[in-house]
């Protein structure tokens, strides 16, 4: 399959994933807001059916902190796919000159966002663990979309290394272009 075709398929897939993660982020933010400001009963059917009523009863402040961590991680995921879509839409990915500064910055930004997700999900998992140790009945961290902090961290490090390799690639490409 040609690279252009693969990129077109990836563009469509990125849009689908972007819409999905935006709904997830918006849903968890709205659900937290609705529970905290309008109707606390909503805590029992928090986003995707997670029952956080025990946490809300324990302390609304902890409920706010926990839902903030879930929402931040979801927003960061949406940001990653926004960058992917922007990259593919603006056609900055030149196949004739793949090593360019835009691509390097894109990889670097995605790696930073991935580090951010790793940090917030790790924090969320530890926080949930602490709440469980306090006797609060909490749903599984996988259901709260807080699992896999180690995988996010691994992905962040890998992308950061690739960004550094790209930097050297750009230097070599520029040198090659300026060789007469």
């Amino acid at each position: 399959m040609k690279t252009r075709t693969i990129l077109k398929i990836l563009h469509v897939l990125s849009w689908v994933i972007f819409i999905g993660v935006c709904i997830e982020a918006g849903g968890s933010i709205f659900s937290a807001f609705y529970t905290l400001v309008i109707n606390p009963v909503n805590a029992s059917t928090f986003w995707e059916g997670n029952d956080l009523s025990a946490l809300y009863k324990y302390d609304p402040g902890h409920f706010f902190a926990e839902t903030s961590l879930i929402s931040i991680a979801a927003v960061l995921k949406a940001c990653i796919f926004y960058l992917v879509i922007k990259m593919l839409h603006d056609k900055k990915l030149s196949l004739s000159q793949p090593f360019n500064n835009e691509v390097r910055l894109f990889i670097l930004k995605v790696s930073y966002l991935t580090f951010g997700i790793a940090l917030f999900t790790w924090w969320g998992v530890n926080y949930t663990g602490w709440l469980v140790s306090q006797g609060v009945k909490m749903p599984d961290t996988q259901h709260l979309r807080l699992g896999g902090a180690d995988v996010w961290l691994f992905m962040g490090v890998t992308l950061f290394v690739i960004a550094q390799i790209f930097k050297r690639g750009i230097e070599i490409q520029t040198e090659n272009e300026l060789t007469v």
Partner: protein
Amino acid sequence: MPIIVNLDVMMAKRKMSLNELSEKVDLTLANLSILKTGKAKAVRFSTLEAICKALNCQPGDILEFVD
């Protein structure tokens, strides 16, 4: 960069235009312009040889080291 390219000086001495040199050394005008303006990062020996042959000069006449 402390290496100065004196290609324009040699071209003026030989009364040769950039187009003429480009045809003689089989290099594009864009590449010759990069060399002439000192933007080049590297010069191939084959290019240097062709330029020296076309301008009837030594590599030292084209390249100069300034500290």
